[in-house]
């Protein structure tokens, strides 16, 4: 029996010890009317060899396109050691470190992760992960509303340049508690959120302003001005950032005069493969003063009975298993293993490595844009600098162009027409460090034939 170790001798001895005639008898408390005899719609069992073959066929069925699609999920090189070690049974098959003495491995990794994320974002504190970027934003906004003592509002300003799926996920989660997202317009020339877009809201009560860096268009926002505006209005500044970009872009902790208050985003670029949508992980950092409003687990360094340093979960009074209905969130299981991978990723590439990744992504995207804007009818939609993704205007509908690229083996970008109809025929393109000059050339040439 797969995964079941019991021999018939075992079963006999165990039933005897229990004093039950059969295993069936152990289910006597379930009302007979509720019992099912069979699950006929389930397929027959496959053995390991059979399922391995089926899965290999299914995985192979899906073509491996050259990927120039980003839109929130980015193809990066993941050093081999990352998953070789994150996949070790001791990490893979452990659970939340409720017994710290038996979980120092996981706990120290989490502490190191928190330290790295705090360092990267320039914030005092990082939690030990949330589910993903979209839900992390939701938690960040709930937290902002709880934390902002100067505001009574549940309204939050968010630019239309924020990832549309993040806006949707955040809305789906937070509207239940009466929070409301108020959409800010963006500048059609720059692709950014100018102070002018904020002006109409000056003097109104908002719990927070969300600032994405880079924004969904890849464009760099004027984060200092936005942060200061928020603070002037007694709103918290909530940053949504790409962690790779932070290797070259100013960290939220230094934005404006006093820095952002809460920082969140998706950790996928740090060691998580594209993997069809997940698992990734959400990160959440904040100023020290806000730590008790933070959702999710936190690991702290302390000492043991003998004075030896060690790590443990801390400030658990924020959490559901202690505080139940008064908790800062309902989150319990988070994305621990992805965080382990991220910690390994950051340790293996280091500060220079991350900077090189970010700078190469940026250079590649610049080079790609330079090449493809030579094609008649193709132009940049916005004139402001970007990180590693950019919006291109096309002479034909993006969908048709992308289809053409696909037929030639290229996953060419993201069609903006349904989320941003105001941009007309436009797509979002990304070239990370996984592409070299030949790939960029090939893309440009192929695009020219498709258009």
């Amino acid at each position, binding site marked *: 029996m797969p995964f079941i170790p*019991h021999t018939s001798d075992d079963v006999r001895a165990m039933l005897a010890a229990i004093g039950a005639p059969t295993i069936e008898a152990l289910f006597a408390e379930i009302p007979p009317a509720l019992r099912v005899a069979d699950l006929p719609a389930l397929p027959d*069992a496959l053995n390991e060899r059979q399922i391995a073959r089926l899965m290999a066929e299914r995985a192979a069925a899906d073509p491996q*396109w050259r990927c120039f699609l980003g839109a929130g999920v980015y193809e990066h090189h993941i050093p081999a050691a990352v998953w070789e070690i994150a996949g070790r049974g*001791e990490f893979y098959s452990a659970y939340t470190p409720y017994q710290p003495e038996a*979980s120092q491995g996981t706990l120290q990794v989490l502490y*190191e992760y928190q330290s790295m994320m705090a360092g990267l974002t320039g914030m005092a504190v990082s939690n030990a992960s949330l589910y993903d970027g979209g*839900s992390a934003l939701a938690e960040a906004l709930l937290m902002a509303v709880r934390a902002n003592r100067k505001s009574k509002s549940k309204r939050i300003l968010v630019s239309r340049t924020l990832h549309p799926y993040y806006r949707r996920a955040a809305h789906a989660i937070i509207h239940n508690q009466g929070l409301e997202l108020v959409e800010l317009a963006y500048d059609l020339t720059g692709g950014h959120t100018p102070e002018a877009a904020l002006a109409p809201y000056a003097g109104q009560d908002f719990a927070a302003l969300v600032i994405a860096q880079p924004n969904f268009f890849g464009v760099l926002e004027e984060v200092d001005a936005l942060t200061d505006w928020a603070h002037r209005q007694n709103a918290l500044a909530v940053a949504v950032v790409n962690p790779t970009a932070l290797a070259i872009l100013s960290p939220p902790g230094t934005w404006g005069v006093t820095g952002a208050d809460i920082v969140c985003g998706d950790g996928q670029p740090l060691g998580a493969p594209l993997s069809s949508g*997940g698992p990734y992980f959400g990160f959440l950092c904040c100023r020290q003063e806000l730590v008790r409003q933070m959702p999710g687990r936190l690991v702290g360094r302390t000492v043991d009975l003998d004075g030896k340093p060690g790590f443990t979960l801390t400030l658990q009074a924020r959490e559901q298993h202690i505080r139940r209905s008064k908790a800062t969130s309902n989150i319990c299981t988070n994305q621990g293993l992805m965080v382990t991978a991220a910690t390994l990723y950051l340790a293996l590439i280091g500060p220079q490595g991350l900077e090189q990744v970010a700078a190469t992504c940026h250079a590649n995207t610049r080079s790609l844009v330079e090449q493809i804007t030579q094609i008649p009818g193709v132009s940049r939609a916005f004139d402001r*600098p970007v990180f590693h993704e950019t919006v291109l205007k096309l002479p034909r509908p993006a969908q048709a162009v992308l289809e053409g690229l696909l037929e030639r083996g290229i996953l060419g970008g993201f069609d903006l027409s349904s989320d941003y109809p105001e941009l007309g025929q436009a797509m979002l393109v990304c070239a990370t*460090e996984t592409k070299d000059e030949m790939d960029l050339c090939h893309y440009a040439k192929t695009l020219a034939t498709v258009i």
Partner: protein
Amino acid sequence: MLIFDRSRPGRQAVIPAIAPEFALSDIPESLRRKKPAPLPEVSELQAVRHYTRLSQQNFSIDTHFYPLGSCTMKYNPRVCHQLASLPGFLARHPLAPVRGSQGFLACLYELQAMLQEITGMAAVSLTPMAGAQGEFAGVAMIRAYHVAQGDLTRREILIPDAAHGTNPATAIMCGFTVREIPTDQNGDVDLAALRQAVGPHTAGLMLTNPSTLGVFERHIAEIAEIVHTAGGLLYYDGANLNAILGKTRPGDMGFDVMHLNLHKTFATPHGGGGPGAGPVAANARLAPFLPVPIVGQTGGGYRWLTEADRPQSIGRLSAFMGNAGVLLRAYVYARMLGRTGMGRVADYATLNANYLQAELANAGFDPAFPQRLASHEFIITLKRQAKTLGVTAMDFAKRLLDLGFHAPTTYFPMLVPECLLIEPTETECKEELDAFVAALRQIQQEAETGPEQVKGAPYHRPVRRLDEVRAARDMDLAWRPAAS
């Protein structure tokens, strides 16, 4: 030693890319980072050695019996990891067109179908990323349902006092208030109290069955009747589904909506705290409200169903497709169990729990509900030991670590004083259970002859008991570079 302590300026492990000199020339200084991020600078060998050695400090299923109640720490088949990690799955962008995703989508679609059959529900959405998010989805669906009915007065969720902390926390996140329902002496919901509690303000009831007390809620049919009659809906917390897999189905019990913990019942790894997956299943009444995306099948193949297809959906709870890789692992596991394997899980999980309960009772320990059959888990209370010997459940737990066993869940559910919630799961063999009984016997003896020994445990782990008060007071939550 922290990885930061191993860092030296200029050291580097993997060189991922070399950017051209001018790379950043177009980014204004004001937007640039001024000081490099304070990340560790170590060699590849240093990183590998550091984290390999850290990993060895963990207890895990792969190394130790891990009977953490309510967590279903069963064996995580390695083949699930291997197959979910096939390059074809890992390299797939979540926004890749469906025509190049049929292999992946087929797995998800079939998983939805299997979960429907297993739960007795009409439809499944796989997107929630853990049990708690599954709960959120389900309770938000209850809310959306009442709103769709134009019934805006139902603002209260009923929750038995034995419930897991995520249940009340979820109800609050969904904008409800919570009312607790007491448990009777036999571990069942107090029906009289429930009858009193329901009314036109009742949005629904959240229930775990078997409950976190390790016993099957025998009056489930009446409970469903009471709540439904009052106009409320029933939410099933599927964390304990391992106990009844293939034996009885939440849909048949009268539940309207539920989640499953794939990282429990379907053996996907716990990963030191996640990622998990918490698919939500609903009966026909609530199905329209399921979160998106869902995988649908049309003549031509599989495709994503999104907001456009499902206008009543509560929406999107993750930016993309939840924890897709976890779903693939669960799919592999489910296919390997197949039609006959599901019931086997419940059979042997239940056999192990009842055997362990019987043997511990035999060894002089006190089951919390000796009059009941255990489900897949059970509780012993060390109230007597705490009173007579001054040795608490926590002390027993810590000493177990010395003896090579992960501790059971302690002090949960809160109803039972000095409790250990013990869940052996079906993948542990009799010898392991016997060794666990022997260890608890030994600790009992130690507690009787030298309680200080037990109260000082553990002695053989990388650290002894940690100063948790100091951790919370001094709040050292991140390493910081020395000011330079």
